[in-house]
């Protein structure tokens, strides 16, 4: 009985999300720009690891977090506004299962959007370069999953869908745009008084920053210089895996806690 509802809801969420106009707009835009980047790289006859790959990383850092957050923002509050949350929760399934099924369904929609963009870019790049570009798929999906999880968390405690939408856009601006600018400002205003290690740790503590550095390392090798011009060494694989897991799992766990502990769900 349990598996049946989870599977049905995941599929339902996937179908519904793939018809959402905002998700469609962002995904199509990402795919078009990814194809454009790939075409440009092919025309310039540059090494895929020097031009197309890093450019796609920059593109993905902008678009994928936004897609993930938008996908998650109405998961719960949207149901509440349509008066269907009670209907879902009256099904013979736990609140945790409902939440997990929603996450999985939306993650599938995200995988489709990411796969479409990167897949088309790889197809255009062609030949031996396609497999190199497709290495981006899993890490990019994980980056999106973190923002999906954050969006879902925002959706769980928001009272209105418009509030949730504003919050996820603000979060995206904060982590994708202003965070690095803030660090740059910190370096300038402290005139280098903040240590390189501290700056590096601050860069790593933002999923978008860690993703960008990991992917740069993938293309440029272990010797890399981050966007801020500060030499950094990435944490070990285990630590990084733990960080990605925590970034995805903690907002989900908090959503589950709110859903389970709240005495009223209608």
């Amino acid at each position, binding site marked *: 009985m349990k598996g049946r509802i989870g599977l049905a809801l995941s599929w339902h969420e996937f*179908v519904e999300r793939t*018809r959402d106009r905002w998700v469609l707009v962002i995904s199509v835009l990402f795919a078009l720009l990814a194809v454009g980047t790939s075409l440009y790289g092919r025309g310039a006859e540059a090494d895929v690891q020097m031009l197309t790959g890093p450019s796609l990383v920059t593109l993905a850092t902008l678009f994928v977090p936004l897609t993930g957050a938008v996908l998650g923002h109405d998961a719960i509050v949207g149901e509440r506004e*349509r008066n*269907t949350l*009670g209907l879902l929760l*009256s099904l*013979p*399934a736990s609140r945790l299962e409902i939440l997990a099924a929603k996450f999985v369904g939306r993650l599938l929609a995200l995988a489709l959007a990411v796969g479409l963009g990167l897949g088309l870019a790889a197809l255009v790049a062609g030949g031996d370069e396609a497999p190199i570009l497709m290495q981006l798929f899993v890490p990019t999906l994980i980056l999106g999953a973190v923002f999906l999880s954050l969006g879902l968390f925002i959706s769980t405690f928001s009272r209105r869908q418009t509030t949730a939408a504003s919050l996820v856009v603000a979060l995206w601006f904060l982590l994708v745009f202003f965070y690095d600018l803030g660090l740059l400002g910190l370096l300038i205003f402290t005139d280098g008084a903040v240590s390189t290690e501290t700056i590096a740790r601050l860069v790593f503590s933002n999923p978008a920053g860690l993703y960008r550095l990991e992917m740069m390392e993938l293309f440029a090798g272990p010797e890399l210089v981050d966007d801020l011009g500060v030499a950094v060494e990435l944490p070990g694989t285990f630590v990084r895996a733990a960080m990605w897991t925590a970034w995805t799992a903690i907002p989900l766990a908090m959503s589950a806690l709110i859903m389970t502990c709240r*005495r009223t769900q209608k």
Partner: protein
Amino acid sequence: MNSIELRQIGVRFGGVQALDDVTVAVEKAEVVLLAGPNGAGKSTLIHTLLGLVRPQKGELFVDGQPHPVNNSFKDQVAYLPEAVAFAPSLTGRQVLRFFARARGVSSRRIEEVLEQVGLRNAGDRAVRGYSRGMRQRLGLAVTLLPEASVVVLDEPTGGLDQEGLQVLWEVLEKWRDQGRMVLMSSHDLTLLERRVDRICLLCEGRVMADDSPAGLRTRANLPARVTFGLSETNGASLRELLKEHYGDDVYEGEGSKLHVDIAVDGLLELLDLRGRHPESVESIRVEEPGLDLIYERLLETAKEAS
């Protein structure tokens, strides 16, 4: 499952006592209506039954035995929320397909319920193009999908046109015939009084009355209204006689109409007076008080008592 009972339910939201010692039972093949003003606790009681609200006090009894609101119970319950809207980008058929899968119901049933609620031709249209009444019918189709023993409807008449109401009446009748237990809330007392077996009146989180519509009439003891169409030429004598007999309970109506408000047990005496003046009366009409009037009277009585 032959009966369910929410016994001595107490729910408090912050400083507000939403439900106070409320007991409501539904038997097999019975349609019970929860009525009451806004904030009376109707939806809270429904949400308690569905496990959406956890009460501080009281519990659910199934067939006379305490029973948790767990998945095995929820598997036996179908629910229609108030003003349900569904995902606008999906078609009616897609919405039903999800609930059919979730409930383990065959896809053939989707066509049957679409037919039943009159949405067969609109099944492939996106929900965003549905009127409020059509969305409500789609919600009704969702509750029709499983063969649930308990059906819970929150304000089911909202947005329904005459055709939609007809669908609802047919469905209610069918559920009763099939031995389902139906618990619903509504403001439309006049619409529903002939469709329900029992009415539970709630006010400020307490049960004010729980009886059949006929029982509520007796309890409210409201007068019936008798309207005489008096003859232009011979009506004067009866008019005088009625005014003499019933005083302030006689009201002049439009044209030559005369209204008399009278307790039901006094009807025979009134008709006897009329019988003595057959030439004075062209028409006569007896109206029972509407359930909304009875409801207002019972509310007033309860408020005075508290």
